[in-house]
């Protein structure tokens, strides 16, 4: 990888005083200009909090440590003025529920115009022309009429398109899409993901796609990071990671997924549940659910190490490619 656009190193986020209630625990992650990175993990894995922390969007009681650099510029602890020039302009973010991100009492056109004025200083006729171009870019037909619509007059899919248009208003170098299609129906999800791919092709913007759906990530990004209980457990190129996962958690996640083709087999569920906040084990956080766990897994947190080309995993064990912990016989589920 060349010079990274964003480089996260040793990022930690605490909401309480106890180290056990750490929401993000030492995440290292870099993204190159124009790259598409997927971040997968279950609820509470820290996949969203990592990026909220990077952009300084967490409430004041959250304590953020480590470093987040945007082309060398430190964002953690940066003054508000600097962050304001980054948010929306260099790095934009869209969220799961578009209708709660839009202001229900303002028309779409006005909200888009506000973003354009803020980020690009466009107003009046130039602003309106650019608003129409943005709506057209995100595939909203009849853009002119839509300008005077309120968010409740649009469907969930259209609202998400408006959010994407608003994120594009600042011509960002990186778009962080946090579960952008989770609230949408399957056929609409396919439309939105195709739209994001098209925009990336046209603008060369980098994309971080945060999702719990491995399929969504597999189809839309080149590199994938897997998070579990606040830590990055595995990272690699999409096909390497999905074809030959090396961390027992990634392996378990893949084995637990029902498929749409091939013979139906019993799902290999991962026993137990994600550790509750404040009750993380001292060692590897996956150890209590891991079929391969050894005594040292309980006491020592594993360091991330290289297991292949651009492929890293944080596991004490040397798991060979092709071996799957997900296929091991289990005790009670």
């Amino acid at each position: 990888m060349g010079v990274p656009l964003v480089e996260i190193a040793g990022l930690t986020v605490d909401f309480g005083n106890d180290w056990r209630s750490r929401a993000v625990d030492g995440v290292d992650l870099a993204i190159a200009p124009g790259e598409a990175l997927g971040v997968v993990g279950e609820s509470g894995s820290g996949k969203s909090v990592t990026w909220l922390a990077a952009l300084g969007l967490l409430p004041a009681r959250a304590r953020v440590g480590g470093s987040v650099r945007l082309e060398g510029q430190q964002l953690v602890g940066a003054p508000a003025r600097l962050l304001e020039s980054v948010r929306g302009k260099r790095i934009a973010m869209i969220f799961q529920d578009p209708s709660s991100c839009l202001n229900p009492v303002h028309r779409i056109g006005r909200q888009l115009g506000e973003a354009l004025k803020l980020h690009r200083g466009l107003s009046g006729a130039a602003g309106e022309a650019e608003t129409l171009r943005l709506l057209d870019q995100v595939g909203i037909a009849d853009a002119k009429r839509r300008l005077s619509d309120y968010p409740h007059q649009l469907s969930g899919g259209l609202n998400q398109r408006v959010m994407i248009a608003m994120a594009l208003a600042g011509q960002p170098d990186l778009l962080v899409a946090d579960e952008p299609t989770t609230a949408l129906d399957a056929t609409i999800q396919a439309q939105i993901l195709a739209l994001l791919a098209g925009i990336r092709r046209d603008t060369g913007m980098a994309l971080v796609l945060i999702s719990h759906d491995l399929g969504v990530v597999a189809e839309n990004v080149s590199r994938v990071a897997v998070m579990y209980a606040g830590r990055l457990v595995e990272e690699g190129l999409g096909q390497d990671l999905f074809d030959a996962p090396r961390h027992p958690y990634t392996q378990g996640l893949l084995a637990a997924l029902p498929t749409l083709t091939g013979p139906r087999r019993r799902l290999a569920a991962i026993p137990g549940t994600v550790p509750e906040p404040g009750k993380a084990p001292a060692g590897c956080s996956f150890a209590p659910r891991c079929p391969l766990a050894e005594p040292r897994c309980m006491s020592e947190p594993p360091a991330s190490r290289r297991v292949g080309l651009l492929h890293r995993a944080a596991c004490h064990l040397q798991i060979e490619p092709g071996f799957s912990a997900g296929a091991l016989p289990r005790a009670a589920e």
Partner: protein
Amino acid sequence: MTLLEATDLRRHYKVRAGRGPFGAKATLRAVDGVSLKIEAGRTLGLVGESGCGKSTTGKLVLGLIAATAGTVRYAGNDMPPTGSAAWRALRPRMQMVYQDPLGALDRRLPVGVQIMEPLAIHGQASPAERRERAAEVMTAVGLQRHQFDRYPHELSGGQRQRVVLARALMTEPDLLVCDEPISALDVSIQAQVVNLLLDLQDRLGIAYLFISHDLRVVRQVSHEVAVMYLGRIVEQGEAESLFAQPTHPYTRALVSAIPVLGPRRERLLLQGDPPNPVDVPSGCAFHTRCPFAVATCRAEAPVLQPTADGRQVACHRADEPALQVAA
């Protein structure tokens, strides 16, 4: 044996299409002529996008809401009218499981008390027997006895859904209507609950009406699958073959829209959103988004017809081989 048979079920709502209290009246056809059969001990999956009427159908077959038209027969007899004594007597035989377990549980009662509640409501068994039965059912769904006195907020999402299932199983039902039972759960927990549902069916011979928008999970649990679009079933058939070779253009789009891990497939990308159910398009309701629509589709509503491979499809062009190639 057919456990439940619904014929031509309809549920229409009177709504105001215009603004304010004096706006024009309109009819929302949430469910518009749905017929389905559930065999004892088998699973019928019901899929479709939000607003297609799948949840309403689930409530209609249980009589939780009254149908505008149509009949439901349960174990060979007509379903008694909603709210009647005979209907109440039948309720323990069929139960409902909802998507959000926290919303379905009372936060101020220990889960054990809630699990025993159905027996109290139906006046079955003595308090001591209820407690014993609750312990049995909790074991069956993979909960531990010491969790009897826990409150819902002390349990994880997967455990709460097990509590909801345990409560539904207390009256030993023949039929469970599961409305998105695992959609609120994390991926690694979903598999646990799916396996549990399959084990319970094996052991207890319960039939499921499994309502979900997640085609992969529906394929995993269902014997038969029905696909709904705007209040009607557009395709119905054996689960594995339906997903392997979907015939109706809508089913094809739905199946192809599912992101997969393996090699990328050709995608049938639909244009636009599903139409407003108040204003259903003429003819085939899907013609506005269908890439294969012809003049007939705009004028005439297709009916469900059996195809050569035992499937039921409501499409004017289902038999055309050219269409299969085009996909």
